[in-house]
C-alpha cells in the first residue's frame, strides 16, 4: 500500500444524436476522484443524455469513456472502459420497484452486493444513516414520496460504492433539511469517488461542487477554478451558457 491511488474518468469525443438533432457533439473531459463536479447546462442541453450514455442506458454514436487508475509517482497503471457496473446513478425521477417495501429493496440490494464490496452496516443502520423513520421502512415503495425514493437511491451507491457516481438533479426534490444532510453526506464520501452532479441551479453548483463543468452546444467546458469564488463567476457562467444560446433555444428536453 502506502502509495495513494487516484481514479480518473476520461470522456473522449462522446457523440449522440436523436434523429436529425445532434445533442452531444464530441463531449470530452477528465474527471478526478475526490472532487464533486457540478455539471451545469440549460434545460435540454443534454445533461441527462450524457449521463444515460455513460450508464449504458443509451448507446453513444461515437467516442468512449475510460476509467483510469493512477498510482502516485508511477503514473497511469490501469485503463479500463467504463462499465455500467462502475456507476451509481441517481435519476431525477427515482425509479424503484414499487412492489417492495423500502426494507425489502435494501435487503435485496445488500444481498446482491455481498462479496463485491464490504457491507459495513445492517439494513436498519443504513436507514438510520439516511434518517428514514422506522415506520416508513416497512411500507411499499409505491407510497413513498419523491424525496424518500431519492434517499433510497442514494443509499444504493453508499452500499455498492461504485467509483463513479452520477446524480441527475437529485437535490431539487429534497426539503431544506434533507438537502443539507445530503450535501454533508456527499462531501463525506467524495474522497473515494468521482462524483458528477448535474443541475441547472447555479447556487447549488457553486455551494456544493469543487469544480464546475458547463455543457453547452454539445460540448463540455470547465470553468476556471480560480473563478469559482470570484465576483465575475456568475457572469462568466452565464456567458458560457449563452454561447450555446441557439442550441438551448431550439432544443426541447429529450425523452
Amino acid at each position, binding site marked *: 500500500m502506502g502509495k495513494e491511488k487516484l481514479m480518473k474518468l476520461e470522456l473522449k469525443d462522446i457523440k449522440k444524436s436523436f*434523429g436529425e438533432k445532434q445533442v452531444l457533439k464530441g463531449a470530452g473531459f477528465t474527471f478526478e476522484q475526490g472532487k464533486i463536479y457540478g455539471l451545469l447546462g440549460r434545460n435540454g442541453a443534454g445533461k441527462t443524455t450524457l449521463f444515460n450514455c455513460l450508464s449504458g442506458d443509451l448507446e453513444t454514436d461515437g467516442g468512449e469513456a475510460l476509467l483510469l487508475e493512477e498510482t502516485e509517482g508511477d503514473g497511469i497503471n490501469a485503463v479500463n472502459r467504463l462499465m455500467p457496473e462502475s456507476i451509481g446513478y441517481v435519476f431525477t425521477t427515482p*425509479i424503484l420497484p414499487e*412492489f417492495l417495501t423500502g426494507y425489502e429493496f435494501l435487503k435485496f440490494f445488500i444481498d446482491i452486493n455481498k462479496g463485491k464490496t464490504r457491507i459495513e452496516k445492517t439494513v436498519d443502520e443504513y436507514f438510520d444513516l439516511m434518517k428514514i423513520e422506522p415506520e416508513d421502512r416497512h411500507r411499499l415503495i409505491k407510497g413513498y414520496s419523491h424525496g424518500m425514493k431519492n434517499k433510497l437511491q442514494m443509499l444504493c451507491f453508499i452500499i455498492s460504492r461504485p467509483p463513479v457516481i452520477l446524480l441527475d438533479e437529485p437535490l431539487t426534490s429534497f426539503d431544506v433539511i434533507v438537502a443539507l444532510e445530503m450535501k454533508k453526506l456527499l462531501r463525506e464520501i467524495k474522497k473515494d469517488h468521482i462524483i458528477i452532479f448535474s443541475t441547472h441551479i447555479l447556487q447549488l453548483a457553486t455551494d456544493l461542487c469543487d469544480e464546475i463543468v458547463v455543457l453547452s452546444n454539445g460540448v463540455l467546458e470547465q470553468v476556471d477554478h480560480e473563478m469559482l469564488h470570484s465576483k465575475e463567476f456568475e457572469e462568466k457562467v452565464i456567458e458560457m451558457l449563452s454561447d450555446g444560446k441557439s442550441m438551448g433555444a431550439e432544443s426541447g428536453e429529450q425523452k
Partner: protein
Amino acid sequence: MRYLATMLLAIYNINATINANRVIFYLKRLPLLGKRIPDRLYSDSELKMIATVIVTILNVLRKFIGKTIYIGLMMVLPLMLLFKEIQRPEYPAAFLQLFFFLSLIAGTVQISALLEANRNKYICIKLMRFNARDFVVPTLFARHATNFIYFLPSVMLTYALLGGKILHGLLLLILMTAFRLSFEAVQLLIYDKTRILINKRFLIQWLVIIPCLAAAYLPLFYHSVWPVGRILFSLPMILLLAAGAAVGIAYILKYHEYKRTIEATLKLDDIMVDFSKMKGEAIFSSVKMKEEDFSEESLRSGKFEKKQGYEYLNALFFERHRKLLEKPILNRLAIIGTVLAVGIIISLFFPEAAGQLEHNLPSILPSFVFVMYFISLGDRICKAMFYNCDISLLRYSFYRRKDVILRSFIVRLRKVVVLNLIIGIAICVALYIFVEVADISFRWMDLMLFTVSILCLSVFFSVHHLFLYYVYQPYTTELGVKNPFFKIINSVVYLACFACLQLRNVPGYFTLVVIGATVTYIIIGLTLVYRLAPRNFRVK
C-alpha cells in the same frame, strides 16, 4: 355570419394542424418507412397542407359512408330481411317509423354538441384560451348543419327508393335538425338549473333508447306500422318543431354563462381527453397493485428473510402478485369443473353423444390445443412482471447482467410452468372422471399420450409467453405492444392452434406431432432466450 365563418375557420385550422401532426407522428413510427421521414415535415407547411386536405376529404367521405351504412344496417336491411311480412307499399311508413325512433329521438338524446367534452374543445378552450361562447356556439351550428348534409343523400335516396316522396325525406331531416337544436337548448337549461349532464347519464339515455328500440322494431314483428308520417308531417307538428327550434336557438344565443358551464363540463372529462392515457390506464389496471391490499403485518412479516438476493426478490414478487395469479387459476378451475359437470349430465341423458368418444380419444385433442391456448396463463403475468418490476429494475445495470437475466428467467419460468401445469392436470383429471362416469372405453395408450400432450402444451404456453417477453420485450412503458416480431410469432402460434380446431379427420399420429412440436418449440425458445435475452431484455 362573418364572425361565425371566421371562428369556424380558425377552429378548423387548429383541428387540421393537430390531425396532420398526428398523421406525421404515426407515419414516423412505422417500421422501415418511419426512419426516412424527417422531423422537418412538421414545419413544412405546404406538405402539411396537402396532408390536411387529404385527412379532411377522408373524414368527410367517412361521415357520408358512415351514415349510409347506419341507414342500411339499422333500417333497410331489417326491413328487407327480417320483416318479410311488411308489404312494399308499407315500406315508406316503416322507414319513417324506424328513422323517427332511432335517429330523431334516440339519436338526439345522445348528442350534446354544447356540453360534451372532446379533444378539440379541450385544446381550444382550456389550452388555447378561446372564448368559450365563441367556440361552442359556432361549432354547435356547424355540427348540426354538417350532420344534416351527411344524412341528406342516404336518407333522401333511401326514402325515394322505398317508394316515399323525395321531398318528405328532406323534410324529415329538417325536422330532425330542428328537434336536435331545441333539445340542445333543453340540455343546456337542465344543466344550468340542476348540473345534470344528460349525455353523461347513461341510465337516462338507456331509459330513452330501449323504449325507442322497442317502439321502432316491435310493431314490425306484429306486421303493423305506426302512422308516424301522418303526425310528423302535419302542419301543427311542423309549426311546433319550428317554434321549438326558434326558442332553442334564441336561448342558446342569449345564454351568458358559457365560460363557467363549459369549463365545468370539461373538467369532468380531463382524463377522457387524453385517449392514449386512458387506454394505458385501462391496460395497467389489470396488472396494477394496490397499496391497501397489503396489511402492515404482511409487509413486516419477514416471511422470506432467509432467502437471498434474486430468490428473495422473485419470492416477494410472486407473493405480492398472488391475487393476480390465484384468481385466474381459480376461475379456470371453476370453468373446468362446470364443463365436467355439464358433460356428465349430458352423458347421463344422452349416452349416445358421449359414446362417440368410444375408442376415439385422439379425435378431441385438436380442440384441446385451442382450449389450452386460451386457458393458459402468461400474458398477464408478463405484463405484471414488466410494469411492476422490470421496468424499474432494468434501469439498474446490475439487473441487466446476463447471469441475472437468465437466473430470474428460470425462477419465473418455473413458477409459470407450475401454474399452467395445475390447469393442465385439472383438465386431465376432469377427463379421467368423465371417461369413468360416462363409461367410455378407450385405449390406455391413447389416454397416456393425451395426458402427455396436454402437459406438454401447458409447458409450451408457459415457455411461449416468457420466451417472447424475454427475447422481444414487446411492451412499451404504456404497455402497448410495438414489436412486430412479437406480433408475428404470436399470430403464427394462434393460427396453428386455430387450425387444429378446424381439423376434421385427425390422423393417428397427431398426438405425437403435438408432443414433438411443443418439445421442439420449448428447446428452440429456451436456446433463444439464453442467446438473445441478455442483449434484448431492455426497456424500450
